[in-house]
Structure formats: C-alpha cells, structure tokens
C-alpha cells in the first residue's frame, strides 16, 4: 500500500468503499436477500473461491484469467445481483499464499461491484431470477449476454485503471492483440456460468463438477504445454550453442541473430506464429556450418574456389538438418537462402530482390549486423553506429532496404546489447578460432581465381 502513488490510493479507497456501500444496501435493505437460497449461494461462493485460488494461465502470458467469474455469472442467474456481489466478495479469502491484503481487498471489492452490475444488467435486459426453465432457452441468452458484457467491461476498466495508476504495466506493454485475445477467452468462459445455472435444476452442485472438470484438465494440459515450450526453447538454444563451440569467437551468435530477426519481424508486423518461426529460423540459420572443414575457416589469406564452395554449401547443409522439423516450414527457406544478396550475387541459388524469401532477407540483415558488432580473431567489434551505416550503405545491393530500415527503426526503439568483449584466448588452452567469418560484410572472403 505504501509504495502506491496517491491517485492509486484514492482510487483504491473509493472502490472498496463503493463495494461496501453496495453490499450494505443489498443485504440490509428489504426486500433484497429474503428469498435467497443460502445453500446455492454457499456452493457458488466456494466454487468461486476454488477457481480464484488456481488462476488459469491462458494464451496471454502477463494476465492470469481465472474461470472464477463463471461462478459469479451463475449466481447472477440463480440468486441475483446481491448474491453475485457476495460471491465476488469471497475473492478476499482466496488461497494464494503471498498475496498481499491490499490486492485481496481490491480483488474482492472489484468483483463485488462487477457482480452487482452484472446482476443489474441481467434484470434490466429482461432476465428472470431463479432456476432457468427449458422454455427460457434460447431466449435467456440475451440478458445473459448483457450480464457478461457488464461484468467483463467493468472488470476490465476497474483493473486497467488500477494498473495504470499504479504504473505496473506501461500502456504500450499490453498490445491490442493480446487484449483482444484476453477478452475473447473471457467471453468464452461466460458460457460455463450459463451451463452451471442451467444444470442446477437437475443435479445441483454436481453440475459444477461436470462443467469444471474439463477446464481443470485443460489447465493441466496447458501447464504441461508451457513447461514443454520452455524446455524446448532451452534445448534448442543449448544445441545451437554446442554447434558454435567450434569457433571461440562466434559464441552466442545464434541467440543474438534470433533476437535481431524477431525484432525485424515485429517491426514489419508479423503475426505470432510467424514470429515464432523466425525466432527459431534465426537460431538455426548456421547449423550447417559444421559441414565446413575447420581448416578452411582457419586458413589465412585467400581461399581456393573449391574451399569457397565448401563455405557456400553450408546453408544447404543446414536445410538438410532441419528439414525434419515440421513446424518450421517457412523457416526452411529462410535458412537456405540467408546468404542470397539483393543484387543476385549471393549463394546458393543467386536469387535477387523479391525472389528471396522474406525470412531469408530478415536473417541476412540480422546475421551481418551481429557479425560486425562482435569481436573476431582478426579485428575488434565495430560500433553499432558503424554497423548500421554499413547496413545502410549496402542496402539495395547486399540487403533488402525495407528490412534494413525496419531494423534501424527497431534498434532505435528497443536498443541492442552487443556481446561483451571476448578476452583474447589464453595461449595454453586449445581454443578454436577462425580467420574467416562468412557473415562479415566488412571483410568479404577473398577467393583466388584458378584460371
């Protein structure tokens, strides 16, 4: 409480006060809460508490949506506004160790207000209280939808104001897309409340078990999904780093290229799925490099055409390796063509301009940028300004100008953490260093003409 800014404090007090007033009015003034079935209310309150105690993580990582509000909506239908407000109030007692009292009070207060408002909206839209009868369907959907809309909207506004006042989440941190997803899943959950209310006439409280069991199983599966996803990311990063250990200076290259690629992807407005793919494509773009014999990379001076051909083969080798990974799909092309040039002088196919797949054009920029801003055995890391100037100089010949400008914009916004200076390898330890970096546009590989 103490660390909250004063507008947030005022807001908090006002909110809790309003909730208290509403509840007092609802419970003390006749005729409210006279004909209420207390056992129904108790079961719903317990249900709400249970759901509130295990918030379900949904698609949006920052926001935990709990299915608890379906219990509040069921209360709207079965008991009415005062009952729904009481059910919402139980959020104060949710079993979540470490949740400070302030947050509990806030949650309880805002859910109580939401419940009351939803009940009001339900009655206004022509809904009747009590056990729904078969003949009420599907007409009941209209008042129920009104109740849902009121609940979700007020819940959203109340929480958003608090988050903004308390400056927990910046305005641009929550993208429009995730807000939309969040609202969609919220509305989806509303249906559970209706199911609970509708089944109350047959098997009463068991209906909640039947409705919630699939949800808890879903939650279990989602939990496993998130765990596997994290594990997968860690594994793919570790394996890619293992591939890089061959060259002392390129460590961390794949993760940085992955980060830079996804910055560009975000800037040009890629969707979630494609962003995911470009992240992995950036990570995997150089796995084929192992196919290049070490002695070629370590050779000083010019390469023969044959040796250069070995280097040019690595995107194909990379493709060969990752071909078995189904979901990469579009990323295959990115890995295979990441050394094509805008003017058509690249390898392996010599594609030019728009013929080059989008992923490849992105990775090419990210790849060259990271190469320039890290140390190499034959030179120190260049500054970011220098690297950007170099990218812009080569835009239109080596790089796609669109991707370069997108990257420059993203750099201006998010900044970039170049790798730390690599200490010169101690002489007594056997480390691998290369004299060639095929990604470095400032030091193109020299090839001896064999004619």
């Amino acid at each position, binding site marked *: 409480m103490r660390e909250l800014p004063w507008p947030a404090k005022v807001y908090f007090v006002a909110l809790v006060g309003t909730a208290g007033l509403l509840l007092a009015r609802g419970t003390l003034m006749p005729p409210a809460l006279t004909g209420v079935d207390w056992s129904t209310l108790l079961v719903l309150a317990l249900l709400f508490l249970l759901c509130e105690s295990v918030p379900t993580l949904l698609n949006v990582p920052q926001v935990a949506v709990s299915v608890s509000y379906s219990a509040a909506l069921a209360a709207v239908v079965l008991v009415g506004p005062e009952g729904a407000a009481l059910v919402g109030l139980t959020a104060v007692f949710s079993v979540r160790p470490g949740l400070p009292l302030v947050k509990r009070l806030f949650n309880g207060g805002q859910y109580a207000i939401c419940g009351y408002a939803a009940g009001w909206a339900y009655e206004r839209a022509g809904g009747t209280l009590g*056990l*729904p009868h*078969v003949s009420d*369907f*599907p007409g009941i959907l209209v008042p129920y939808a009104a109740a849902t809309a009121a609940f979700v909207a007020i819940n959203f506004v109340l929480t958003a104001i608090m988050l903004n006042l308390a400056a927990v989440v910046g305005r641009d941190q929550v993208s429009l897309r995730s807000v939309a997803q969040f609202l969609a899943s919220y509305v*989806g*959950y509303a*249906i*559970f409340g*209706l*199911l609970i209310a*509708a*089944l109350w*006439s*047959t*098997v009463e409280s*068991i*209906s909640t078990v*039947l*409705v919630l*069991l*699939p*949800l808890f*199983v*879903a*939650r*279990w*599966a*989602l939990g496993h*999904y998130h765990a*596997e996803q*994290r*594990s*997968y990311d*860690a*594994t*793919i990063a*570790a*394996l*890619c*780093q*293992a*591939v890089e*250990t061959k060259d002392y200076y390129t460590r961390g290259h794949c993760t940085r290229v992955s980060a830079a690629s996804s910055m560009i992807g975000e800037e040009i407005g890629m969707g979630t799925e494609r962003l995911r793919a470009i992240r992995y494509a950036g990570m995997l773009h150089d*796995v*084929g490099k*192992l*196919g290049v*014999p*070490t002695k070629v990379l370590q050779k000083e001076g010019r390469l023969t055409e044959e040796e250069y051909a070995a280097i040019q083969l690595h995107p194909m*080798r990379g493709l060969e*390796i*990752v*071909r*078995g*990974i*189904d*979901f990469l799909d579009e990323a295959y092309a990115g890995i295979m063509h990441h050394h094509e040039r805008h003017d058509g002088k690249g390898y392996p196919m010599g594609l030019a301009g728009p013929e080059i797949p989008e992923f490849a054009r992105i990775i090419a920029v990210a790849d060259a940028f990271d190469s320039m801003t890290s140390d190499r055995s034959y030179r120190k890391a260049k500054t970011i300004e220098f690297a950007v100037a170099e990218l812009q100089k080569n835009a239109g010949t080596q790089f796609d100008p669109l991707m370069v400008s997108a990257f420059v914009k993203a750099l201006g916004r998010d900044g970039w953490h170049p790798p730390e200076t690599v200490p010169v390898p101690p002489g007594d330890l*056997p480390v*691998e260093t290369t004299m060639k970096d095929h990604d470095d546009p400032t030091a193109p590989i020299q090839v001896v003409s064999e004619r």
Partner: protein
Amino acid sequence: MRERRLAAVRPSQGLDSGQLLLICAAGMLTVAAISHTAAVGLEAPRVAVGFGALIAAGELARLTMPGNREVAPVSTAAALGYALLLDVGGAEARHSALQVVAVMAVGMIAGGLPHVAVGRPPRLDAMARRLLAGSLLAFAYRPFAHSLFESARDRPGEHGDWWLALGVMAVLVTVMLTADVVIAAMLRAEQVRTAFGVALRDEIRMGAPLGAAVAASGMLLALASHSMDMTALPAFAAPLLVTQVAFRKYAGIRATYLQTVRALSRVTEVGGYVEPGHSRRVSQLSLAIGRELGMSEPQLLELEYAALMHDIGQLSLRDPIPGGATVLADPAQARRIAELGAEVIRKTGVLHAVAEIVRRQCDTVAEGPPAASRIIKAANAYDDLISGSTDRDRAAAALERLRLAGGTEYDPAVVEAMARVVDRLVLVTRL
C-alpha cells in the same frame, strides 16, 4: 514420426491381427446399424442430426497425442452424450442403441472425409476403437434409458430426481473407458512389442486426463439437453473446445520437441564426427532394447533423447576422431566426450536425467550406471562394429564380441535383449 521409426524397426507396415479384427468388427457393426436404422426409420431426426453434426465437427478437429495416438475428444464426448441422452427439453429420447451406432458412424465418416480430401488418410484402427467404445456404452445403457427417464422426469410441481441416472451414467462410462484403455493397451503391446502391463500403464497415464474430461463432458451434454433443449449442443462445445485447444498445443510441442532433437542430432554427422545415420540407428536400437526390457514411455523418451545426443560431446573436440567410432577410440577420450556431451545437455537446464544418462554412457557394469546408459553403451558399440550393414554374419560376430565383454563392459541382460531385437530385425530384412 513415430510411424517412420516403427517402420524401420519392423518393415512390415501392414496392420496387426488385433487391429484388423477391430476394424472388421467396427465395419460390420456399422453396416448392421445403418441398415437397421434405414429400415425402421430415424427416431427424433432433429436430435440425431444435431448430435451427428457435433460428432462430425469433433472428428474434423481430431488430434494426434504423443506416441502417435489419435484422439477426437469432442467427437467422443458428443457420442457419449447421445448414447446417454434421456430427454431433450422434457421430451423422452427413444432412440435405440443401433441408432446411436449409426449416427456415430455417419458423423465420423462425414468428419473424416475432409481429411481424406486433403490427403490425410484416416487411422482406421483409431476410428474403429472410438466407434466400438461408444457402441459398447450405447448397448449397455440404452435398455435402461426408459426406466431412468421415468425416475428423472419432471412431475408437476417438482423437479425430477437425477441422482440415480447420474450414478448409472458415471458407472457405465467408467466401465466403457476402462474397456477402451484395455483394448488400446492390447493393440499397443502388439504394435510396439512391449509387455501388456507396461502398455496398460502407459495408456492410463496418457489417456486418463483426457478421458476424464471427455466423460464429464458427455454426461454434461446429456444433462444439459434436459434443461437447455438443443441450445445445449453449442453451449456444451465451449468447455471441451478449451480442453481441445490445450491438448492440441501440448501435443504439438511434444512432437516438435522430438523432431528437433532428432534433426539436430544429425549435426555430428554433417560435421563428419560420426558416420551418417549413426545417431538415428543407435536411438532406434536403444528404443527397441528398452521396450524389450519393459521400460515405460517416459523412460523411453529420455532414452531416445540420450541416444540421439550421445555423441554431441564430439562437437567440442578439435578434430573429428577418424571414422568416429567411439568404441574403438581410447577409453579416456570416450569418457571425455561423454562428459562434454553431458555438459552441453545440462546447459538446457531441464534435461537433467538425459544429461546423466549421456554422462555415464561409458561406465562399466561395476560402476552401476542407469539402465538407459547401459543400453546406449551396448547399442553404440554394436552400431560401431557393424556400421549400418545388414549382413547376418557380421551382426552375429558383433553380438559375439559384446557377449564376450558381458558382465564387465556390457550388461548381459541388455546384450541378450539386443540379440532378440537384432534377430527379429535381420529376419525381417531377409524376408
């Protein structure tokens, strides 16, 4: 992916006798049910069409769970709901068990057709299992439907008593799910050549959560049809849809994970550290041995990861060992490769057990390494000795060499299991 590997272990890709039997039974039942329904006419066509459509939609949205298990939760739950149906908005549901089967079959075929149209052939055995499980429930439950309806129906002035109906539903659905799991385990035991007990435990582990969700939804649907009329169908789809989405994501990441480790295990080959196909062959052989020794699925997954990545430590070496055959390299170096490989895997921060298996892959029997390490050690040595050849004499010679070192270097039980696996393999490739 799993299919491809199985095919490599047992090239005869035809159906097992058990699967064939199942498909025939389902086919005959379908024909009987449809012709019977056609003869006596469809009872309550509106309800039948509604449920049939939901079954078809569920079939369309089927998904493949880890271990190449095809499931269609929405379809199964809708079928359960239709089988369990007592009344729709107060009007008694009088359809027979055969009509349930007919509606299920038509719905499943309709939902499967778009898959066929885009070139994904149906998994007949999985469909047959779903159909038979639903039919089993229908035949057990429909005869009681009328008396249950009488006890549960609303009388003027009071709501009906649903507890008896709910109890019967719960018991029969549990029995049905148990039967389904047992059938699945029998098929799987035959398919991947593992012990029935192990297969049963695997099936329960994989199937229990989804089975519980499907069972609850099926009963929910039957009850909701009473109080919500046909509005129940779309409303009911919501809880299961959430479940379906969650499981699809989970299955997707599991498949991707395996594919990625399989793909990246090949970097050692591309780098010239090991012979082409070495990692894949070692992992296939290890898996077959693991199954032969009765390992469960989670153990097999760890074994597979470890076997695929057992040579990853070589990436940290300055130059490839000539020929890459670690069995012939000097033991100190082999141990270092194992340590380095474990180091790489430990960096993931999650695959600790796999890292441990890789680290101890060179241990002698006396050092007491995990079973998976012993399997990989033997499989690796075997593959180095025969290096991809399918020659019978060479295989026998390699086995003999492993047997000679049995008890000290190699675990005799593992070597014997390998002998049985290899025998099957050679036999099949010879045919």
